[in-house]
């Protein structure tokens, strides 16, 4: 493939970032936005061309339907050793092509949406600069040819996420949230880095193609080495997964994501719903053939994913802030994807289902990106209208904001898994894969799906129905620039499910026909409908039922509302243990013991100087006395030693 387009896909956002970052403050808002949107638009077009060419041009598909993996270009960037080389390249395979579409689409929508949402904000140009930076980093991440390139862009998305979360830097909460996000993901990245180190130590390569095309070779190259009872490959994969846990907000590293909602809402839509947070899923998918080798690593993925999915769904039921609800829903949905990846591996279930989970996961990633972005942007419109994040300040908004209402509803239906909306198809595949792997996990995930439907509709009803509070100004729909993305994404959410996804994206790059597994599909739809009905019953208009339930299970409510006190736990660990327990004592130790020792050399010298002061008493006879003693000692000691 021609490398011009791929280069431009990365270069344009970077250029936009540099232009807007350096010269932005001299520009008008309009010019900056126009530049940003134009840049992103171009990237969008180029990405679509690239991705669609990849998917549909016959030369990239073999005779047996096998899609090729293309390394469009691969420039040596930093050669550690002869084998270990970081290259910056452009790798095209089904998932990266799909991600190109997802990222550019959502990013473009957000660029457009922000025009209205961020209008008149201070630092408007900066905002667009950061968005461009993020788009660049995210695109670089998905097209990485080697694991270290991925790590590089992994860090860059982290940094741009940091900058965007902290966009309202005057607010303490935003600053704290951005810091938290960065540090938590940084901690996870440490695992990622060590994982890379371990893996590369044994395989002597960073290259994805080399690792994934013949995974058994990876296994051989470790030579069966073990560390603390587990094989080094398990260690490496689990550590790499840790990185994914951080970015994708898996328990216990999820705590940053809800706080990240302090950023502007479009940013939440882009980064914290659609693209960056699925990087972890993408990472595991990228390394999937290697993960398939290691049952224990995938087992960990499944367990973490399943627990996180359930946990996040529980918590989402008891939140007040609509963005938080969406954030927890995101966590839960990403956990779905993780679980799907975990259950896709060999060793369990029927052979025909191998790789189903992989496809399902990617499918869900795709659809989720669309409808979750839609929901976030919708929430943004709501917040824009009522100037509050809490549903308590909302209610009955369906009359005032029809476009928002309908698009939001579509989003909710999609996530709840109601056909024919896109979420149904992808979630169904995931559940099918889960059931195939193990019925227990299938049931568990179905339960989570039910909870999903419940909390989404709880939110929906509380916002758009329930009781109408007194509005100072009648809320109204958002301006056109904000509505267009909503409508577009809603439309996508309606139809995306019918894409024959299995033809494009599968783990072995061979086409795969999706067929709805009726028992799973029907049961999950029924469950979802029941959950929606319950939600409707409880929240369609003001009634004492929610309060009663809350009173009936106060403990549960408290725990859910306080997110099972994870933040407090972290607060305790970081502040009490690390900060007060390690840093402070260390600093004290440094000042008083280490430095004290150094100072004590001086003190001791001074003391010694004081102590020998009487030697110089000023009395001649004492001088002579010391003289004599000195001479005699000199003679005496030498005589004893020598003779």
């Amino acid at each position: 493939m021609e490398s011009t387009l791929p280069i431009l896909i990365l270069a344009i956002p970077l250029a936009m970032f540099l232009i807007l970052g350096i010269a932005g403050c001299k520009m008008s808002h309009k010019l900056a936005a126009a530049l940003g949107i134009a840049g992103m638009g171009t990237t969008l077009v180029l990405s679509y061309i690239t991705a669609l060419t990849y998917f549909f041009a016959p030369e990239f598909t073999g005779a047996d339907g096998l899609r090729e993996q293309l390394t469009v270009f691969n420039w040596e960037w930093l050669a550690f050793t002869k084998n270990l080389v970081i290259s910056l390249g452009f790798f095209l395979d089904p998932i990266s092509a799909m991600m190109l579409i997802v990222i550019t689409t959502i990013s473009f929508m957000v660029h457009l949406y922000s025009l209205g949402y961020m209008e008149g904000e201070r630092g408007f140009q900066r905002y667009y600069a950061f968005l461009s930076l993020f788009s660049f980093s995210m695109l670089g991440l998905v097209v990485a040819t080697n694991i270290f390139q991925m790590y590089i862009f992994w860090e860059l998305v982290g940094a741009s996420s940091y900058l965007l979360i902290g966009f309202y830097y005057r607010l303490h909460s935003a600053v704290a949230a951005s810091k938290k996000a960065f540090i938590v993901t940084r901690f996870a990245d440490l695992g990622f880095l060590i994982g890379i180190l371990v893996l590369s130590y044994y395989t002597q390569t960073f290259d994805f193609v080399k690792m994934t095309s013949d995974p058994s070779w990876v296994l051989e190259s470790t030579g069966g080495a073990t560390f603390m009872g587990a094989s080094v490959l398990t260690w490496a994969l689990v550590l790499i997964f840790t990185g994914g846990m951080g970015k994708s907000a898996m328990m216990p590293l999820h705590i940053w994501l809800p706080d990240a909602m302090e950023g502007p809402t479009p940013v939440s839509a882009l980064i914290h719903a659609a693209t960056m947070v699925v990087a972890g899923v993408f990472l595991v998918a990228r390394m999937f053939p290697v993960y398939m080798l290691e049952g224990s690593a995938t087992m960990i993925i499944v367990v973490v994913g399943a627990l996180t999915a359930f946990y996040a769904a529980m918590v989402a039921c008891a939140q007040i802030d609509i963005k938080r609800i969406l954030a927890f829903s995101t966590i839960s949905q990403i956990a779905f994807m993780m679980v799907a990846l975990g259950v896709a591996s060999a060793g369990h279930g029927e052979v025909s289902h191998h790789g189903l989970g992989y496809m399902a996961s990617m499918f869900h990633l795709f659809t989720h990106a669309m409808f979750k972005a839609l929901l976030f942007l919708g929430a943004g419109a709501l917040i824009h209208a009522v100037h509050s994040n809490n549903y308590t300040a909302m209610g009955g908004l369906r009359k005032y904001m029809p476009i928002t209402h309908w698009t939001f509803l579509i989003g909710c239906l999609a996530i709840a898994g109601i056909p024919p909306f896109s979420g149904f198809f992808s979630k169904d595949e995931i559940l099918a894969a889960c059931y195939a792997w193990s019925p227990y996990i299938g049931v568990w995930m179905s339960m989570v799906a039910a909870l999903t439907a419940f909390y989404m509709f709880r939110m929906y009803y509380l916002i758009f129905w329930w009781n109408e509070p007194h509005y100072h100004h009648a809320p109204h729909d958002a301006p056109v620039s904000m509505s267009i993305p909503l409508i577009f994404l809603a439309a996508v959410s309606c139809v995306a499910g019918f894409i024959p996804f299995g033809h494009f994206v599968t783990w072995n790059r061979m086409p795969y026909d999706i067929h709805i597994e009726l028992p799973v599909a029907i049961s999950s739809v029924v469950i979802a409908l029941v959950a929606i009905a319950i939600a409707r019953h409880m929240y369609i208009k003001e009634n004492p039922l929610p309060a009663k339930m809350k009173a009936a299970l106060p403990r549960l409510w408290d725990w859910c509302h306080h997110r099972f006190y994870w933040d407090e736990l972290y607060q305790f660990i970081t502040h009490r243990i690390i900060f007060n327990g390690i840093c402070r004592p260390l600093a004290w130790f440094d000042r008083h013991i280490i430095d004290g020792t150094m100072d004590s050399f001086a003190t001791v010298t001074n003391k010694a100087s004081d102590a020998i002061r009487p030697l110089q008493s000023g009395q001649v006879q004492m001088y002579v006395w010391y003289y004599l003693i000195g001479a005699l000692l000199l003679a005496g000691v030498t005589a004893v030693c020598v003779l």
Partner: protein
Amino acid sequence: MEFTAIYYLIPALIMFCAGVYGFITRKNMIAMLISLELMLNAVDINFVVFNRFLFPEAMEGMFFTLFAIAIAAAETALAIAIIINIYRSNKSVDVRTLNEMKF
């Protein structure tokens, strides 16, 4: 009874030690000077005795003694002069008054 070198050397040593003792204990500077003279004379005796008893073929010890006596005289003269100076300013020849500069 034959007088060997040791019979002269031991008194000389005693003289020397007495000089040292006197120098360290006497507070009067003149007395200290006398003690010093004792020490120097002990040295002279040593030289002479060594020369006379052990190496009688040359006169090095004798000559050294002569020069040493001269040097001792010079030293004493100078010391007396300085002590007088000190007496002028301190009105005392007590060595303990020489303690202005210390530490």
